């Protein structure tokens, strides 16, 4: 590792080495360049929005921050609700496939879950309006009647079921395949020795999973969840179609007034936007960019801090 050694011994580079290393360099550089190009575009196009005339904002809002605030809230709220619903189910499916199901069934089930990922979001949107919302609406009515004293379930109940809770269910279904696929791969990576050791010590299958598989897979579960969260944060069409939006911060889950998400708001208002209106929408896009970045950084920090205890080393 001394500098002398580095200068004297120089490996002969074959063409394949050079081509491959420059190919990876280009690939790595390209993603940075694309990201930078998007960020710069958003930043430049957003500038007019921050100093926009109060009259340019629709509704009662008079400045950009009060306009984007409820949208950021709605984006994070719906995505986190989706994550809460999707992650336990995804872990369950992944464990079933990796440790419980007969091999043949496991393979088929794996394909089926992957198939869900290939369904276009418009189809999920149509399914949300046409099937899911009417299906859950009576359930919502009962929930509001019985548990209306609990703030998130307070009324008045939506007559169509097109609420943020329904959106969260749709989003959960959409992010399920990606979380399941990654969890499944991670669980299959659990060292067989760990599993056998646990079983040999008298652990039941559930105890073995709790002691050997889950701790080993925790960083993977977290990064899978973060990938799912990223998709839920940015989902546009399904939310735009299913949600009945308003312009405020609303915690209630079952009313027809719901905080909109950033991506859905852009999709809804871009077709008729002009002038500074376009800049305002792009500036909300910049906020989504920032939110996603923060979420990913948070996830990285969590994974790195947990690695030491995971048993993976």
């Amino acid at each position, binding site marked *: 590792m001394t500098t002398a050694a580095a200068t004297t011994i120089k490996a002969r580079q074959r063409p394949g080495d050079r081509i491959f290393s420059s190919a990876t360099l280009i690939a790595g550089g390209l993603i940075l360049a694309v990201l930078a190009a998007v960020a710069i575009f958003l930043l430049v196009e957003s500038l007019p929005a921050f100093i926009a005339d109060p009259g340019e904002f629709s509704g009662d809002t008079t400045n950009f921050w009060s306009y984007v605030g409820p949208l950021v809230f709605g984006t994070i709220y719906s995505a986190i609700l989706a994550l809460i619903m999707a992650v336990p189910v995804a872990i369950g499916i992944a464990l079933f496939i990796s440790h419980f199901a007969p091999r043949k069934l496991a393979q088929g089930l794996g394909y089926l879950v992957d198939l869900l990922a290939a369904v276009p979001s418009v189809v999920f949107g149509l399914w949300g309006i046409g099937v899911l*919302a009417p299906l859950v609406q009576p359930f919502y009515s009962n929930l509001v009647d019985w548990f209306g004293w609990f703030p998130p379930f307070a009324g008045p109940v*939506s007559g*169509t079921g097109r609420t943020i809770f329904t959106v969260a269910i749709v989003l959960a279904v959409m992010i399920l395949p990606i979380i399941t696929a990654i969890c499944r791969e991670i669980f299959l990576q659990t060292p067989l020795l760990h599993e056998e050791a646990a079983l040999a010590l008298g652990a039941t299958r559930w105890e073995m999973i709790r002691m050997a598989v889950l701790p080993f897979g925790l960083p993977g579960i977290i990064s899978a969840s973060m990938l799912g969260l990223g998709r839920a944060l940015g989902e546009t069409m399904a939310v735009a179609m299913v949600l*009945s939006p308003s312009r405020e911060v609303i915690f209630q889950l079952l009313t027809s007034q719901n905080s909109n998400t950033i991506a859905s708001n852009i999709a809804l208002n871009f077709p008729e936007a*002009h002038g500074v209106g376009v800049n305002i929408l792009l500036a909300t896009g910049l906020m989504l960019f920032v939110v996603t970045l923060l979420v990913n950084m948070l996830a990285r920090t969590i994974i790195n801090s947990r690695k030491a205890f995971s048993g993976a080393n």
Partner: protein
Amino acid sequence: MNFKRFGRPAVIAIAAGLALSSCAANEGATPADDASASTLTGTLNGAGASSMDAAQQAWIAGFQTANTGVTINYEPSGSGGGREAFIAGGTDFAGSDSYMSEEELAGTFASCAPDSKAVDLPVYISPIAVIFNVDGVDELNMDADTLAKIFSGAITTWDDEAIVALNPDATLPSETINAVHRSDDSGTTKNFTDYLGQAAADVWTEKASDTFPFGGEGAKGTSGVVDAVTNGTNMIGYADASQAGSLSTAKLKVGDEFVAYTPEAAAEVVAGSPLVEGRAADDLALDLNRKTTNPAEYPLVLVSYAIVCNEYADPAQGELVKAYIEYIASAAGQTVAEEAAGVAPLTAELEANVAAVLATVK
């Protein structure tokens, strides 16, 4: 192995054969109907209101069939965007749900000859229906005040005495009203709120805008509103009448009678509305008379304008625009749009007025 070796080329050959033969069939069909005597050639670019996109596509198809040398593009970029692009000279005409503002008229138009202005021509009338879905109710009468109270949230149940007073024979349930509005910015919302603002000025104090000003249920696009009303319970909403489908539509109180929407009644209110004052004589911007008391008129309509120059910087473009808009505003063009997009055809009088203005365009 043998099958693989010969099978693959055979499959490719068959597939290619099918693809080629289907191509040939297409090509044979196209030049069959180019019996046009038209001498017009060129490309026309327009942009604007998405509401009239379906109609524009039908008009473009009709016009290009008759004039094979002409290519017309219409980009549904929104009314505001369309006017902006036209003023900046990016397009030859604009489609817009609202007429040009005084401010826009005071500026210069890049496509037009120096010192000439642009005019608004009403070419697209679409009635807006109040749609509802309430169990056991097939007919519903509404007046502007009650409608404004429902959509602003002042009336919340179907058996409210204001609604009962208008519908003494109906069995109205004691259920919450779910009022659906457009969640995306839309000219339909602007015309609906304009109607409420004019006809129920005491109740509806918000100014007309593309964005719905109150809460309630929101849905994306006309189809979204129609879906929400269809699938929900105790629903009411507003949508372009052509898209209302099998839903029941409410009658609006005009004068002393309740008027159901018909294309004729919608065209009638437009024909009966005065021109906006203080504009050039050939600018046909309409001050829609939403407060009409004539029961032959249905006041809840959306009117879109074609915005064209009085005189084009390039006379050849002027010829093209003139021919195209003349076709749009003709009886034939209106019939095409009625079939394709459910518009209410212009009355003969309005058609003549538009044609008279177009005759001066160059």
